[in-house]
Structures are given as structure tokens and as C-alpha cells.
């Protein structure tokens, strides 16, 4: 029988999760609607002064992105846990880390990437300038994969627990603070005419770190949770 290579395993898992997400579109859409709704609540809460909104915009969008990715992370492993697929994944003879990476990437494509694409529209609501929107999108593009990857650790640790969703946020949100700081910092830097490369390179460094370690850590967390 023909053996599957690591890359084919990665592609197989990623495609599977994307197909499943497409066949359960409602789940994906609710998360996006949540993101848009949270962002739109802020002007209602703090008033319509454009100066203030422009200043707040990066923080608001980033916090909303954090919250909506927490919502979707609960589903990252739980469906596979409930129907027994996760057991089979743990027995995969190749690499559980690669498999987990495939799931992380598809989670990002479904829940992180759409946020990046929605950002210009929401940025205009907050009267952001074009360069600020560009930097915000770039920051989100680099940062949302980190949220998916760090969040996966939390999702794996809270697998099958009562109140797992809230607990997941409690565990993961503090770990995501650096991402929030660099992401919003970059936009503030560009708005005040400073160089953004420092913020974005730091974010890139975090992304590389996360890529290197989180799949393995998540794999260990899954083994602990399945015992």
C-alpha cells in the first residue's frame, strides 16, 4: 500500500477541515458576524466623535479579532473529539504535530483570514486612513495565525471540560497580549508618521516562534487530554 508523505498528510488534514467548514458554513459565518457586531458596538458605546474613533480603531479591531478567534477555537478539536476522529489522529503513524499544524492552518484560513479581509470595510467605519488600514491588515495577517496557533494549545488543554469555552479564553488571552501590543502599536506608529518595521518584524518573529513550537506543544496537550 502506498504510504502517505508528511506533506500529503498536512494537505489532507487541511483540506478535510476546509471542506467540513464549507459544509457547516453557519458556524464560520456566525463568528464573522460576531466580529463585525462587536466592532460596530464601540461607536455606539463611546460616541461618534471621529477623532476618538480613529484613535481607538486598531485596538477595537484587534480586541474583536481576539474575542472572535476565541469563539471559533472551541470547535477546533471538540467535534473530532466527540466523534472519535481525534483518537484516530493520535494514532497517526506519521506526525501528530504536522497533523495539528494542518488543523491550525485551516482554522486560520476560515476564522483569521476573513477578518483580515473584512478590516478595510470596518476601518472605513472608523475613518482610518489608507496607510493605517494597510498596516492594520498586515499586522492582522501576521498576528491572527499566532492566535490560531497559541489558541490551539488552550483548545487542546480544555478538551471535553465543562465550561471549556470560557476557560479557553481565560488561558489563552493573557498569552496573546504581545500580539495585541505589536499589532496596535504598528498602526499607531504609522498614524504618527513613524517607521512600522520594528513592530511588524517583532510580530513576524513571534509568528516564527509560534510555528516552531505550538504544533508540538498542542500535540502533547492532546495526548494529555485524551488519556
Amino acid at each position, binding site marked *: 500500500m502506498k504510504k502517505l508523505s508528511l506533506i500529503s498528510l498536512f494537505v489532507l488534514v487541511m483540506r478535510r477541515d476546509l471542506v467540513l467548514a464549507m459544509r457547516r458554513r453557519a458556524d464560520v459565518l456566525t463568528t464573522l458576524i460576531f466580529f463585525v457586531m462587536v466592532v460596530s458596538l464601540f461607536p455606539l458605546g463611546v460616541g461618534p466623535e471621529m477623532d476618538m474613533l480613529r484613535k481607538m480603531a486598531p485596538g477595537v479591531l484587534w480586541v474583536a479579532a481576539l474575542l472572535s478567534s476565541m469563539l471559533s477555537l472551541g470547535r477546533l478539536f471538540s467535534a473530532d473529539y466527540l466523534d472519535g476522529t481525534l483518537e484516530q489522529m493520535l494514532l497517526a503513524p506519521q506526525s501528530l504535530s504536522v497533523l495539528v499544524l494542518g488543523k491550525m492552518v485551516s482554522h486560520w484560513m476560515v476564522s483569521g483570514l476573513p477578518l483580515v479581509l473584512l478590516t478595510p470595510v470596518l476601518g472605513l467605519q472608523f475613518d482610518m486612513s489608507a496607510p493605517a488600514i494597510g498596516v492594520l491588515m498586515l499586522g492582522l495577517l501576521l498576528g491572527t495565525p499566532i492566535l490560531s496557533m497559541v489558541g490551539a*494549545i488552550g483548545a487542546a*488543554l*480544555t478538551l471535553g*471540560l*465543562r*465550561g471549556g469555552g470560557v*476557560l479557553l479564553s*481565560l*488561558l489563552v*488571552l*493573557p*498569552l496573546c*497580549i*504581545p500580539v495585541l*501590543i*505589536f499589532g496596535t*502599536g504598528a498602526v*499607531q*506608529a504609522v498614524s504618527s508618521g513613524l517607521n512600522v518595521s520594528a513592530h511588524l518584524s*517583532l510580530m513576524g518573529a*513571534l509568528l516564527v516562534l509560534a510555528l516552531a*513550537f505550538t504544533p508540538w*506543544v498542542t500535540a*502533547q*496537550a492532546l495526548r*494529555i*487530554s485524551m*488519556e
Partner: protein
Amino acid sequence: MAINWFKYSAPTTFYPLAGKLIPWFAISSLILFAVGLYIGFVVAPADAQQGEFYRIIFIHVPSSIISMFLYLIMAAYAALGLIFNTRLSSMMASAIAPTGALFAFISLWTGALWGKPMWGAWWVWDARLTSELILLFLYLGFIALHASIDDPRRADRAAALLAIVGSVNVPIIYFSVKWWNTLHQGSTIKYSGTSMHIAMQQAMFTMLAACWLYAIAIALTRVRSIILERERNSKWITELAEVKS
């Protein structure tokens, strides 16, 4: 004579040993607290700029330092438990967590009390206070995860992994918060620093030692209760004098 340290890594031998050690730590901690508070509040002179308010640092600084170290110690114990599957290390980690969280909380509380007369605000988004707040969140996450898993072994292992990830993240968080703080030109807590009076230094170190001894005494007391709870079905527990009576 070589001491067999591994002997003490078994709950059976550690339980009575801890019981014998606790009074020593507790009593010396009490004495040092009395001495430290006396020096801090009576002997040490008032600060030139801050007047009497500065005296809160005798509690604030030791609790900040200890809360940070305890997180690392907790993560180290948790890692030992995870890697070598030693039950006692995991128990130590969960015994340390509440004390660490308490010190982080005291540090935040005293920071706020100090901030009000100094800056006129209870809370300032200072880099150190913010990091301390995040540290408290990390402690709470550890405790919450441990508490929500029923199976003690899974709880130990899952919380250990979280503590390790957290301790890797602490420097990144601290650095990013500092960076964020300098960008926003926020106020930074500055103590008298270099020109500290000798009595102030004595008070600070005595209080630090007192807090350490307190932390050890409390962690040992808590680990004894955890041992009793976890090993309640084993024979040696049912034969203990305090359990029989």
C-alpha cells in the same frame, strides 16, 4: 554521608518531614515580619520626596518579587512532574499556585494604595503593574484549569504544560508591555533607588526574607493537605495518628 534525596520525593516520607519543618518556617517568618515591620515603620526615616507613603514598598516590593519567582518555581515543579512523572512535584506546583496568586494580588493592591497619594490615581498603566496584572491572570488560568479537570493526573499534566508555556511567554509579555509603556510615555514607578537609607534596605530585606519563609510554610502546609486528599485510600494515610483520631 550521602543523603538519599529521592527518599524525600515520595509523599510517604515527605508528609512527616514537611510537618516537622512547617513550625520552623512559620515561627521564623513571624519573627522576621515583626522585625521588618518595626524597622520599616519605626526606625527607617521618612523619605525626602514621598514622606510616609513610601513605606508601603516594604510590602509591595517583596510581594512583587516573590510572585514572579513563585511562578517560575511553580513551572519548574510542574515540568518535573510532567517529565519524570513524580507525583510530589505536581502536588508542589498546585500548592504554590494560590500563594503566588495571593502575592501578585497583594502587589497590585499595595501598588494601587501607593499610586493614589503619589499620582492621584488608584491605577496607572505602568509597565510593572501591568505585567503583574498579567501574571495574576496566568496564575488564575493555572488554578482554573487545574480545578476544572476531575482526574488529578490529567489536571497535573495539563496545568503543567500551561505553566511551561506561560513561563516561556512571561519574558515576551514583559518585554512587550515595557515597549508598549515607553511608546505611550506612561508614568513609571520609581522608588528612591540608589540613595536608599540603610534602615530602608534592612527593612526591605527582612520583609523579603519573611515573605519567603511565609510562602514556604504555607506551600508546605497546603501540599500536606493535597497529599492527604490524593492518597486518602492508601494504607499509610489511614494509619496516621491525626487521621485515626
